């Protein structure tokens, strides 16, 4: 049975094909390669310096002869992602996604690490130390390269008041990172059961730009209880330490709730188009002003004194203005529009087109805007001219009424140009007649200037 403390044969005849034990060993190599890869990547994003000792004599848990410590939560997340299966030829790659999340709720995927298994180009006849040592070499390369990407520098600057780095482990295709991306193949290990490859994709430009495919998420997009730092590698380590200080074995710590990896998926994955529209609609619904709340008062205003100081003639009924108009569902409005246009005040009113309201029978769809029916038209004569005295026949009132609607035609265009045009025309004619005289004057002036110059 293969363990981390391997014993190797230095010589011997190579058997043809794989024995059952070799097959089992090979599968264990692949399994622990996956786990250790995720461990070193997540640990490199903790924002802490890693230091593990060299040991002349290995421990049973030191796989691939490397001092890689295990964070229990990361082990659990990796197992969940693999779902108890091994990576095989043709199976979806194992991906580790590192993303940045700001305190405002914006999120940006920084890099993707993918471990995939493809057809082996040169199937070996034996499971030798060469395969194991090449896997160890691959892990060393991952460890070295993990320090040179921009995400590593960000990990050292993360904090609860600025941003945190989060990770997600899953099997499947990675999300694109946009145009400013660098892709590199860290290494490959050819084994009898497949060709293991590790590919890294990382952003070279960290500006949040929608055209690069960056995902910007509104701060109120998610439920608050889901916005937790449990998937921040930093707090994984902190939680792990608390468990150690309390005397509990870190390996025996209970895993987090089983659905939380799925929650992490919901947090950081672009939603499908359908869900996106629904979420945007919900967001619009939330931000819409609700007239059912009653009249609003300005900042620092005392509602009770505002009512008291108003004279009786300026006090409007306490019903909000929109209640003068019927609040209808959009369906009803559309039906009425199809039958006849709604006309108020000389202009046709149609339902606003910039609000997409979900036709959900469980919801009360409210159309916001001047939607009215001619049957329930409310007389507006009760509205008085502001700053005017007495009745509406006063000058201010008359002016106000004149300005309420645009004039049918501008009177100035109907007036004849008359005297002004006639005078200008005669002047022009006179100037044309005297043109020769003006030319002689100019010439005489030029001659005089020449004589004075001499």
């Amino acid at each position, binding site marked *: 049975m293969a363990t981390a403390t391997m014993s190797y044969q230095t010589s011997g005849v190579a058997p043809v094909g794989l024995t059952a034990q070799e097959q089992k060993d090979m599968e264990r190599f692949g399994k622990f390669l996956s786990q250790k890869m995720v461990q070193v990547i997540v640990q490199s994003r903790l924002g802490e*310096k890693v230091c*593990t000792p060299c040991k002349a*004599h290995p*421990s049973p848990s030191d796989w691939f002869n490397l001092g890689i410590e295990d964070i229990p939560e990361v082990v659990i997340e990796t197992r969940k992602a693999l779902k108890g299966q091994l990576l095989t030829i043709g199976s979806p790659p194992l991906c580790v996604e590192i993303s940045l999340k700001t305190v405002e709720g914006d999120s940006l995927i920084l890099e993707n690490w993918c471990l995939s298994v493809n057809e082996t180009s040169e199937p070996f006849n034996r499971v030798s130390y060469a395969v194991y040592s090449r896997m160890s070499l*691959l892990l060393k390369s991952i460890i070295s390269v993990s320090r040179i990407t921009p995400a590593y520098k960000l990990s050292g600057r993360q904090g609860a008041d600025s941003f945190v780095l989060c990770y997600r482990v899953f099997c499947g295709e990675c999300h694109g990172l946009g145009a400013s991306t660098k892709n590199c193949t860290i290494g490959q290990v050819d084994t009898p059961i497949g060709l293991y490859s590790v590919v890294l994709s990382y952003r070279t430009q960290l500006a949040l730009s929608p055209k690069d495919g960056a995902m910007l998420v509104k701060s109120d997009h998610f439920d608050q209880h889901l916005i937790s730092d449990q998937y921040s590698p930093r707090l994984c380590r902190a939680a792990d330490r608390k468990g150690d200080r309390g005397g509990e074995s870190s390996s025996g710590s209970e895993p987090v709730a089983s659905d939380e990896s799925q929650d992490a998926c919901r947090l950081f994955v672009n939603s499908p188009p359908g869900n996106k529209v629904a979420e945007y609609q919900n967001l619009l619904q939330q931000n819409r002003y609700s007239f059912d709340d009653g009249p609003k008062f300005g900042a620092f205003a005392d509602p009770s004194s505002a009512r008291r100081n108003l004279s009786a003639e300026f006090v409007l009924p306490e019903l909000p203005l929109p209640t003068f108009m019927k609040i209808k569902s959009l369906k009803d409005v559309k039906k009425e529009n199809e039958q006849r246009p709604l006309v108020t005040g000389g202009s046709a009113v149609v339902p606003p087109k910039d609000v997409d309201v979900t036709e959900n029978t469980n919801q009360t769809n409210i159309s916001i805007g001047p939607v009215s029916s001619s049957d329930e038209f409310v007389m507006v004569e009760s509205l008085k001219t502001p700053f005017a005295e007495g009745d509406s026949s006063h000058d201010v009132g008359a002016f106000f009424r004149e300005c309420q609607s645009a004039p049918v035609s501008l009177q100035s265009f109907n007036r004849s140009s008359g005297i002004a045009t006639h005078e200008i025309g005669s002047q022009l004619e006179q100037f044309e007649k005297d043109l020769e005289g003006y030319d002689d004057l100019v010439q005489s002036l030029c001659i005089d200037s020449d004589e004075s110059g001499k």
Partner: protein
Amino acid sequence: MNARTQVFEMALEGRQVEEAVSSLFHTLLFHRTLGKFHYKQEGNYCVGTVGYEDADCDFVDLTYVRCSSGDIKKIVHKEATAFSECLRSQERETQGQARSGHISLTFYQIKKARWPFPSESIPWEVWNLRMELMTLASEIERQLYREKVGELLAEKILYIAESMNRPSYVPKMPNQPELDLIFDTSFADIQPYLFKISYGTSPPSTSMGTTVRRLLKDTLSI
């Protein structure tokens, strides 16, 4: 057999030389270091554990990973510092003229020769760093160059990782009697491949005399 050779060239400030050399050489040695071998009966052996740690640079915007063995850290630090001092003393002597030098990390194996010929070191992988010193005028330039050199070294580290994982020649695992021909067994906690570090203030010479000498050696060793 020809050694696999790779040359890196860079221009940097004098105070950046030691960290640049350390970052690249430690990355290489980390890849070329195994755990300590412990042989058992019937030719079986087990391998120790290689620990690693992060190392921050002060004059370069870079963090690199190195083997956490104290002995190997001392060796690399000693050679890198000596090379840096050598270059900077050359700068002082030439009073600002062009200063350059090279430092090499060579992995080799020992080939025992027939009597009366001595054993021979045969390199199988050579990494050359050619460095040229430059002087920056302002602090702003130094800050910008600090980041630029960091990016440059990051590219080199990525190249090293990709190169190490390509199928290429590496000495095969020896039996216990031949372990010292492939690995440096002088370390207490690790076992790197045999390596040596050499440096000079002029480019590696490829004169006719050196070439002929090498040809004669190879011929006699057959």
